[in-house]
């Protein structure tokens, strides 16, 4: 019983006070999972663009 209450409370704390949309717990959790993968890819993508830009600038000098 106490575990149920705690899990319910932890769910409440993550919701914004002014969100009217019911997002579904599963959708929130999956973002943490997908985010790790997608975030890494995204980081490399932007990092790679920065590296390319850095070398492009060096060539101009």
């Amino acid at each position, binding site marked *: 019983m106490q575990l149920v209450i705690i*899990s319910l409370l932890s769910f409440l704390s993550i919701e914004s006070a002014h969100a009217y949309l019911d997002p579904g*717990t599963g959708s929130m959790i*999956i973002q943490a999972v997908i985010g790790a993968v997608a975030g890494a890819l995204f980081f490399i993508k932007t990092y790679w663009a920065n590296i390319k830009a850095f070398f492009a600038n060096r060539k101009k000098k």
Partner: protein
Amino acid sequence: MQLNSHPASFRDPEGQIFFHQNKLIRKLSGNGIKSYKMLRESGLYEELISDKKLIPHHEVEESSEGLFLSPDLIENISYPYEWSFSALKDAALLTLDLQFNALKRGMTLKDATAYNVQFYKGKPCFIDLSSFEEYNEGEPWIAYKQFCQHFLAPLALMSKVNINLNALAKNYIDGIPLDLAVSMLPTLSRYRPGLYMHLTLHSKMQKNYADLGEKTESKKRSISKNNLLGIIDSLKSTVNSLSLKNVDTEWGDYYNNTNYNDESFENKKKLVESFGLSVEPSTVWDLGANRGVFTRIFSDKGINSVAWDIDPVAVERNYNQIKKENNENLTAALIDLTNPTPGIGFQNTERDSFETRAQRCDLILSLALIHHLAISNNLPLDRVAEYFSKLSENLIIEFVPKSDSQVKILLSSRKDIFPNYTLDGFKEAFSQYFEIVKEENVKGSERTLFLMKKK
């Protein structure tokens, strides 16, 4: 001021829409006002307005009751189940774009429904100002599921299964349920990286956690800003990778296969133009417009026009052409006149029916159409006339006789049970509801073009 609430605006109490005289008013209160001020102070509002991605809003009044804004009006309201594949795709990309830019400025979209987008001057435009709220790092995207159901699922289904599947949106007011979408995808598509993450896996997670309290371990639910941007970027690549298979539909190649010689085609165009301009229309609806060849007679003159057709490939081609031309006066949309879009949603008034929206049009074109309604679909001529009279004041209609090669094809495989389908029968049926203003034969063909005015 005297405000009448809009039937679709009830889910978010802090940003409601009302009618007032001929304007739309958005009333912000509580956190809605805070969010709006942040939207302006962060510079996000200016950026979106100058990029033409958000509909301009004007401040009307600020009082103890709230902050009142008035958005510019969209001339042609259309819904995702009426859009072509590319139109839905562009609306999806716009939404992701907005979310990406919002995050960069410390804000986020609290909903991602397809109904937040309308087509304004030929381009997708976001209309829901109240969607923007403050972003707190660590929070996952609350609208992620909604985005997947409203945009990704129908696009994947249209691309991988069948182009007609956005019609499901009529049945599912909050987008296509993920498990339904996944069940319809071919197995290979389910496991491609993008669709796997955002649809297949997403759907599994949803089902697992559907019963609150079953899994009592507290799972990590916070997500960094970089990872959130990564998800948006991944959604963007996934949406971009979806495209239509080359589909051959009945009407895709229409203009190559009809019996118009060039001369009669030009004559018809001239007649349609002179009939149409004589009524000085402000909004023209072309029914059975195919790729919008005749609709463009009016839109090219700056007259707001909508090209409606039953064939999704024709609508798709028209939309792509609208984009290429940067056409600001034409909207392309899907309709089956024998089963037109009903009002849907709560009380069947959240999304307007075809007929309700027709109140805005004052001229209807029904070219090369009547034989499909009357013969292929057995609709009595007088009932068609009655329906058209409910849609518009003015009508330009082409009567296609049984001697025409197209009608011969329609009658070749069925019994001719249409004794009243003659020029006189047609005129008699329509005269019950319309006054015949002009009548002329289209030179080079057996067809007759009419200009009619509702009695």
